[in-house]
């Protein structure tokens, strides 16, 4: 899932200053699950915005809408009326949702309510960690299912750097060394010989090189 974190409240309050009719668009998928921008978070924000309005004697009206996903246009259509009725939209979706919302509602100012962080997993209630950077060419087959791109701080491809100590990373001792994890996993699987294979330098063209990426699945395309 895409993991995001709510922006500091000061920043959100500042960006919404002066607006009286505010729509907060939560998103019902990834950011709900990572508790950054689901309906509950949107309701909390709405509540505090209204409270602030009341204190300043400004009649702030906040409407919360929760499309299932902000990254599919039909769900955005469902909430169009409420969005059109507002002066400003605070999108709690990930970076994709915020932009797609802005694209769908051209005349509206759409502001971000979250900082999008990474593709990751829920480690515990309230804790998420990064697992994938979307580099475009998966090499997990070579590394026992632990990604050296995302989980080694230096994205090393052929073993740890000199800073790995006691299984921890020199960048931050609370981070596990990605290569230690790879070693442990391959050992568990009885496939340590995999480590003798040299991994060729990665072709980063599949990643951020070459501009925004596009995926097409020909057989499902609809002919114009």
């Amino acid at each position: 899932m895409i993991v995001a974190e709510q922006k500091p409240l000061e920043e959100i309050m500042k960006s919404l200053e002066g607006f009286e009719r505010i729509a907060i668009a939560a998103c019902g998928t990834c950011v709900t699950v990572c508790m950054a921008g689901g309906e509950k978070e949107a309701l909390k924000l709405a509540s505090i915005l209204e409270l602030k309005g009341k204190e300043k004697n400004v009649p702030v009206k906040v409407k919360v809408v929760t499309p299932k996903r902000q990254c599919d246009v039909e769900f955005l259509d469902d909430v169009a009326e409420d969005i059109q009725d507002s002066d400003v939209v605070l999108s709690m979706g990930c970076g994709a949702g915020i932009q797609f919302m802005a694209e769908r509602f051209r005349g509206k100012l759409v502001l971000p309510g979250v900082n999008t962080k990474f593709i990751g997993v829920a480690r515990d209630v309230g804790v998420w960690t990064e697992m994938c950077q979307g580099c475009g060419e998966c090499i997990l087959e070579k590394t026992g299912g632990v990604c050296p791109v995302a989980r080694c701080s230096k994205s090393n491809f052929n073993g740890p750097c000199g800073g790995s100590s006691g299984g921890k990373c020199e960048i931050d001792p609370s981070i596990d060394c990605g290569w230690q994890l790879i070693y442990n996993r391959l050992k568990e699987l009885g496939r340590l010989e995999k480590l003798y294979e040299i991994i060729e330098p990665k072709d980063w063209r599949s990643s951020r090189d070459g501009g925004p990426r596009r995926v097409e699945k020909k057989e499902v395309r609809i002919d114009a």
Partner: protein
Amino acid sequence: MNVAIVGRSQVNGVLQKHLAEQGFIPFLVDDIDDIREFNGEKFKFTLRTSRNSINAGYVIVTEELSNERYLDDTPLKDTSYRSIDDIGDLDKRGTENWPMAFILDFPSESPAYITAEALENAARLAVRKKRVLYLARFMRTAGSDVESLYKRARNSGVTFIKYNELSINYDQDAGLFQIQAKDGYDSIRIETPEVHVAGKAVPGSGIGKIAKLLRLKQDKNGFVNEGKSFLFPTLTSRDGIYFLNTASLTKAEELLERIQFTVSEIKSEVNRIYKNSTGCAKVLDMPMDFSGTDVVINDKHAVVDAGKCAFCYTCFRACPHAAMAPDYENSVMKNLSNSCQACGICVSVCPADAVRITGEDREEGRIESNTLKILCCENSGEIAVKKLRDELSEVYGKVSVTSVRCGGDINVEAITSALKQHEKVLVVTCMDDACKHFEGNKRAQRFVERVKEMLKASGMDENRVECLKISHAMPYVMLDGIREMI
């Protein structure tokens, strides 16, 4: 009705007999490694082993604890200690007059029989003009005859010391224990060659396996039902599942008492529900089998809005009573209403705002405009505030009170919503380790802290909300809290 007995124990036979006598059908599953699957809720548990599948209304876990001598985690080896019952042959003991220490270092209540044994032996030594110190982290007060034993020990000259912090060193050359005990105010140093330490039961790996399988909450020591002194020792975090908590050092009469309590608890519940659901005044001796029926056991419970549920498992993980279960057919969570205690923790953690408690409206539209809103837990704040009727008359009209099942239900939104209609909000919840729902009070406190952060971040007064942790017997602490806010 079937009752499953899970675990290997010497008491299984006695338990089976007691259950059968009360009209239940006991099923024994003593090989816990053979349990493939465990599902369901009170009245509808299913347990699948390699051989068969069992439906059971209740589950009683009997897996035994193992015994260990307490204080083993200190660097001292247990050879230097004497146990609580090893006071030697009294007639042959010399005239030594060094102080002797009895140490009961249990994080919460020491078991009744250990307390009794320690008090008895301390008194027996003290009465022979020995200097006896009785050190305990937690003074047990409940239990038959404990009060008279304390009295006897006091009259015999035993000195009682209650501490929060304890350190012990052993000076090999001098053959002396050096004990330092602190209670947060004072500190005392004791030197003694003779220390008696209570034995303790510790959970073995079997308990961990069962806890995981049955989704029972374990405390930091690995017990599934310790540390909640107000609970009878066989209740667990999950309704319908009991844990007999036996170890070979448990005394037979205490065991029997626990078995009788558990079986009669189950029997009276079955009869009560049968009576309520059929309207039949005459309670049948033989409990009926509820499997396959829709008997309503808890009319107040959580419900999940399937249209909103993100199937994120947050409620499943956070529920202290294991009352949420996945509904794979519909890709949503569902509430197990027979297990649900309506504490509202799921409501407050659900990121999709998809859970609510039946029969609870959100008080929207109700207009109140007094100075202080008190949001309180029904187990502490609500009882305490009711005792303050006279004292609160001076502020009548300025305060309104809403109580909920558990502080864990008083979430950020509930507090901010209340702040829209009231100048200030006081959240009153149970004291640490006293929450009936394990951590609802801590959640409430964290929610209050979050609201304070939010108020501060948006330039408002963070002191508009406060949290107070009290017991129901502390109304005047609550009154002070109220007076500070208005």
